[in-house]
C-alpha cells in the first residue's frame, strides 16, 4: 500500500510540473472571427445619446502611484463625459500583462482596450494571431497623425500578417514617450563645480573626475538584466547611424550586429568596468535598489536610464536632479534610445470598437498630455499650448530632451525589439561582457548568432 501512495504522490508532483505549462489547444476549426462593422466605417461619436449602461474593460500597466493617479483621473473624466459608460480598469505589472494578455485577447469577453507591448514577440505575434483591430480608419477620423509623427506611428505598426515591423497598419497609440539619457545629481555636481558635458570625450572626462573625487560615477545594478541593455545601447546610439538602427530593429536590409561600432560600444562598457565607473558589485544589485541609492545621493553621481524615472526622483529626498542626453563626439550623429510608451490597442473581436477608439483618443488628448506632464511623465502627444511644468525643472529637462531628439529626427530604438529571443540573448551576453567573461568581439558574435538565426527564419 505504501508503495502505491508513493507512486501516486510522485505522479501528482509530476502532474503539477506539467500542468504548469499546459494550455488548452485551439479548436481545429475555429469560427471565423466576427469583424465588427465599425471597422469599415468608423464614426466619431460624441457622447452616446442613449444613457444605457456600457462597460469598457481596460487593461493597463500603469501600476506605479503617480501613473495610476493619472489613469484614474482620465477614466473618471471619460465616464463623466460619456453618461452610461463605465470603465472597468484592470492594472497589471508589465511582466504580468505580457504573460496573460495574449490569452485574454483571444477570449470573447477579453479586455476591450489593453496596453500591448511593442515589438515582434508581443504586438507582432498578436497581429499574426489576428487579435488586434487595425486603427488606420480611426486614426484618419480622429486626425491622430497631427499628434504623432510617422516615425512614432511606425513603432506601433505592423503589416497585417504581423511579419514586417514598422510599416503597414497602425495597431496602437501611445500616451507616453520615453528617452534614455543621463540623470545627474545636481546637488553633488554643483558642489564640485562639475558642468554638463557636450561631447562624449567630455562625458568620459567627467566620469574620471568623479572617480578621482572618490565617488561612484554611474549608479548601476545589472541583477535584473534589462537595464544593462540601456547602458550599452546608449553608447551604441552615439556610434551608429539612424538607418542602421532602424534596419536592425525592423529586420530589413540584412544588417548585422557584429559591427565595429557595436564592438566599440562593448569595449567602452568593459573600459568603464575596469576603471570602476559603475557601482561596486553592480552585478548583484537590482534596478530599483540602484535607483533608491541614487535618489538618496549615495549610489552615484549619474545614472543612465529612461525618462520614466523622473517622476520617482521628485520628493522624499534632499537631493536635486537633472537630466541630459548622452552627447556624441564631433562627426557622429547623436541618437538616443527612445520612443513611445506601451500603446493602447483594441481587441479585434470587441463589440464596442467605436467607444474603444473614443477612449484611445481620450488617452492621447491634450488634456491627457497635461495630466501626464503634471505627474512628471513625458507625454507622447503635444501639450496644450503655453504649458509650463512649474516647479519641476527635472521634468522640463526630459521634455527638452524628447523635443530635441524628436525635432532632430534622432529617436533611436530599444534593440531588444529586434527578435523574439533577442532580449534573453543580449541580457545573458551583456552580463558576461560586464563580468569580463567574454571579449567585445565575442559579445557581438554571440548576439549576431541570435539575430542571424532570426533573419534566416523570417
Amino acid at each position, binding site marked *: 500500500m505504501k508503495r502505491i501512495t508513493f507512486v501516486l504522490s510522485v505522479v501528482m508532483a509530476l502532474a503539477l510540473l506539467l500542468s504548469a505549462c499546459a494550455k488548452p489547444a485551439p479548436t481545429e476549426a475555429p469560427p471565423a472571427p466576427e469583424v465588427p462593422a465599425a471597422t469599415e466605417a468608423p464614426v466619431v461619436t460624441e457622447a452616446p445619446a442613449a444613457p444605457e449602461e456600457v462597460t469598457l474593460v481596460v487593461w493597463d500597466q500603469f501600476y506605479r502611484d503617480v501613473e495610476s493617479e493619472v489613469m484614474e483621473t482620465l477614466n473618471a473624466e471619460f465616464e463623466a463625459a460619456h453618461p452610461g459608460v463605465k470603465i472597468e480598469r484592470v492594472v497589471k505589472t508589465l511582466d504580468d500583462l505580457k504573460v496573460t494578455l495574449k490569452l485574454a485577447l483571444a477570449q470573447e469577453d477579453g479586455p476591450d482596450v489593453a496596453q500591448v507591448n511593442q515589438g515582434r514577440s508581443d504586438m507582432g505575434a498578436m497581429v499574426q*494571431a489576428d487579435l488586434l483591430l487595425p486603427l488606420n480608419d480611426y486614426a484618419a477620423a480622429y486626425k491622430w497623425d497631427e499628434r504623432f509623427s510617422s516615425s512614432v506611428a511606425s513603432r506601433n505598426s505592423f503589416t497585417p500578417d504581423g511579419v514586417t515591423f514598422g510599416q503597414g497598419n497602425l495597431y496602437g497609440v501611445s500616451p507616453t514617450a520615453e528617452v534614455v539619457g543621463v540623470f545627474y545629481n545636481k546637488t553633488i555636481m554643483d558642489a564640485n563645480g562639475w558642468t554638463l558635458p557636450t561631447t562624449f570625450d567630455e562625458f568620459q572626462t567627467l566620469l574620471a573626475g568623479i572617480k578621482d573625487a572618490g565617488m561612484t560615477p554611474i549608479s548601476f545594478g545589472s541583477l535584473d538584466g534589462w537595464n544593462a541593455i540601456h547602458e550599452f545601447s546608449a553608447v551604441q546610439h552615439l556610434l551608429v547611424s539612424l538607418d542602421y538602427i532602424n534596419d536592425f530593429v525592423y529586420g530589413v536590409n540584412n544588417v548585422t550586429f557584429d559591427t565595429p561600432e557595436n564592438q566599440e560600444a562593448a569595449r567602452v562598457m568593459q573600459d568603464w568596468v575596469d576603471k570602476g565607473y559603475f557601482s561596486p558589485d553592480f552585478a548583484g544589485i537590482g534596478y530599483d*535598489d540602484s535607483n533608491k541609492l541614487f535618489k538618496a545621493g549615495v549610489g552615484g553621481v549619474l545614472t543612465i536610464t529612461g525618462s520614466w524615472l523622473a517622476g520617482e526622483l521628485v520628493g522624499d529626498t534632499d537631493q536635486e536632479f537633472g537630466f541630459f542626453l548622452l552627447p556624441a563626439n564631433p562627426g557622429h550623429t547623436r541618437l538616443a534610445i527612445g520612443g513611445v510608451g506601451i500603446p493602447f490597442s483594441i481587441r479585434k473581436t470587441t463589440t464596442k470598437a467605436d467607444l474603444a477608439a473614443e477612449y484611445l483618443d481620450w488617452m492621447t488628448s491634450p488634456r491627457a498630455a497635461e495630466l501626464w506632464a503634471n505627474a512628471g511623465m513625458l507625454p507622447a502627444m503635444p501639450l496644450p499650448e503655453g504649458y509650463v511644468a512649474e516647479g519641476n525643472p527635472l521634468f522640463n529637462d526630459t521634455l527638452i530632451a524628447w523635443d530635441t531628439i524628436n525635432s532632430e529626427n534622432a529617436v533611436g530604438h530599444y534593440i531588444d525589439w529586434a527578435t523574439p529571443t533577442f532580449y534573453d540573448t543580449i541580457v545573458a551576453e551583456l552580463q558576461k561582457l560586464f563580468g569580463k567573461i567574454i571579449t567585445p568581439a565575442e559579445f557581438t558574435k554571440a548576439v549576431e548568432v541570435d539575430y542571424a538565426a532570426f533573419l534566416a527564419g523570417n
Partner: protein
Amino acid sequence: MKSQRRWPGESRFHGWLYLFPGLLIYLVFVFYPIIETFRTSFYKWDGFSRERVFVNFHNYISLVTDAQFLKALLNNLVFIIFYSIIPILLGLLLASLLGRKPLPGMTFFRTGLFLPQILSMVVVGVTWRWIFNPNFGLLNVGLRAIGLGAFTRAWLGDFQLALPSVGAVGTWVQYGFCMVLFLAGMQRIPNDQYEAAELDGANEFRQLLHITLPSLRAELGVALITTIIAALRVFDLVYVTTRGGPGDSTLVTGFLVYRSAFQQNQLGYASTVATVMTLLIFGISLIILRFQSRDGEGV
C-alpha cells in the same frame, strides 16, 4: 486485497460514483494538461494563434543540441546537492541532536527550524535577494561588521557564486522538512535498541550508523524523492532572485520552460522541455523506489 461481495441489488458502478468528483477534477486539471503538454511537444506553436505545425521529433532533436538546455540541466543536477543531499545530511544531524532525549524548549527549536519550509518561495526569494544585496544586504553588512569586509561579494551577480548562493537558499528551505521527517521516524525506534547498543559500547556515531539510519530507510526514501523533485523543478526561487543570470549561470530547466513558453512564444519547445523533465523525474523516482523496496522489504 480480497474482493468484496456486493450487496444484493447494488450497482456494479457504485464505487465509481464515489470516485467521480475527485476523478473528474483530476482528469480535467491534471491528466488532460499532461496529455496536452505531451502532444504539444510535437508541434511548433506560439501558444495562442490558431495554426500549429506538426514537426514530429524536431523539438526533441533541437533539445539535445541546445547548449542552454544542457547548461540548465547541469545546473538542476547541481541543485540536487543543495536541495537534496545537504538538507538530508543536515536534517539527520539535527534530528539526532534533537530527537534522542527530550530537551527543554524542544518545540521551539523544532518549530523554528521548520519555519523556512512553510514560507512561500517568492517570500523566501525576495528576502534572500535582500540579504544578498551587496550594498545594504545583511550578509555583506554582517561580514563588514566583523572585519571580514574582504569576503563581501556581489553574491547573486557573481559568475562563480550565484549558483551556490541560490542553492544555499534551497538548502535553507529544505532541511527543516527533512529534519521533521526524520524526527517523526525516530520516535518509532524502540529506545531499548539504543540502550543495548550503549551497553555494548557503541558511541553516538555508531548508534546513528547502525540503528537510526537503517530504521529511517522509509523516511530517507521520501526525503530523497521529494527533495530531488524539488531540485529538478525549481523555478520560483530563480525567477525572483537572478532570472537565470548572470549569463546563464543559474539557468534551470523550469525557467527555460517559462521563458520559451511565455516570453519567446515557443510553447511547443517549452512543452518538450517539460516532457523531458517529467520523464527524468519519473525515472529517478522509480529508481529510488526500487532501491528502497528491494533493501527494505516490508517497511
